[in-house]
């Protein structure tokens, strides 16, 4: 890639915080460093990855509101987490953590476990348990 071919397609992915560093060749075909604000193909696939995430979060929100799933599902998706990641925080195996996604088991959780979930998602217990907050 030549230095004048380094793409500058700004889709505000970097929020103006910095330019990405590329290595490109100058007029005499030697390498130099060139900054870039973004490249269209990367912007497209990155945006699509976030779209998938937003769809998952919305689906989870609907499930929580209709009582099919516990609020933990919503906050798990919102924080891009998986049962494996969460099980690291709450200190329980992932298959048990998955049970907590179901309202039946979720209702049996004590304050101590809820506290761990709240810590994981960086919210208060009140925010975690009150589904009016996500309406």
């Amino acid at each position: 890639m030549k230095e004048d071919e380094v793409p500058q397609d700004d889709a505000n992915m970097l929020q103006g915080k910095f330019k990405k560093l590329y290595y490109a060749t100058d007029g005499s075909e030697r390498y130099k460093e060139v900054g870039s604000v973004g490249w269209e193909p990367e912007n497209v696939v990155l945006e699509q990855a976030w779209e998938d995430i937003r769809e998952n979060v919305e689906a989870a929100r609907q499930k929580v509101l209709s009582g099919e799933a516990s609020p933990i599902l919503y906050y798990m998706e919102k924080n891009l987490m998986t049962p494996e990641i969460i099980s690291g925080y709450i200190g329980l195996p992932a298959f048990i953590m998955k049970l907590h996604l179901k309202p039946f088991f979720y209702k049996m959780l004590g304050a101590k476990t809820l506290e761990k979930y709240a810590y994981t998602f960086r919210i208060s217990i009140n925010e975690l348990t009150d589904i009016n907050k996500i309406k």
Partner: protein
Amino acid sequence: MKIDFPHKQSAHCENGVVSNLLRFNGYDFDEPMVFGIGSGIFFTYIPFIKMNGIPVTSYRILPGAIFKRFSKRIGMKVESHTYSNTAKAMSELDAMIDKGIPVGMLTSVYYLTYLPDAYRFHFNAHNIVVYGKEGSNYLVSDPVMETTTTIAYEDLVRARFAKGVAEPKGKMYYPTQLPKDFNIDDAIWRGIKRAGFDMTEIPIPILATKGMRYIANRMQRWPERLGDRKAIQYLGNVVRMQEEIGTGGAGFRFIYAAFLDKASRIVNNNELYDLSKEMTAAGDRWRDFAYYAGRVCKSRKSDVMSFAELGDIIKECADREDKIFRRLHQMAKENI
């Protein structure tokens, strides 16, 4: 306490931290040299390990390996610690800063609040250097950023003790023995030799150039096997791993070409410069792949340029790289 730290931006975090820590100690190794001597270039496609339901693709060797190989080749020793106790991990960090020693550490990108939101995924092997503390904020040199930045105590604790795949466990490190008795020519050739071996000689079909042909063949069947939506997700992930922050363009191919360019002048070998140009050409083909793949993703259908043709571009890259690295391997063996 604030250490005078010579921050310089790099494309990739691991190269950058090594390069910056060495610059602090008076050694000038820029990013391509670290990447090349550390034999960082690679390719893997692992269909049976999935992240969020999408197979893992990588254009480089495992996190930490560049550091290890580079240190070995220039005779640097690094001390590293992991912690089970967060308070202890933080107070030992403070103690190091008070002693005037900047510390490299592993963090999760998700909790690094100063990074752009769009890039904050759960990736647990991001390297940064902490070089000071002001009040309850730590001063951070993050190699992917143009300037230094700060992070709050609580966020840094989260980042150092993130859970999930390959937990950082508060890992921090600093050089205890600086480079000595090294021969730069020798280090360069050894780095090239290992890269040549890794890229062409490993008899496992999902690794290196074999892995490129493997993903090309798989990719050509994605639309029929997975359906449009999933095929686009898989393809998008390959492009993301290739072009996201940290690769310097074309999945590290341009960083490696820059290394060959610089190395040709240091060891005085014009053929390395010719191979640098060929590496650039291979990288340009990877960029073509990303460009067309991006258009396929945007249209959300598999007919703008079919997956079959995309696979053919990757096969062409595999042929080019196979030729380059076989020659490099040969040259390195003659020169060590």
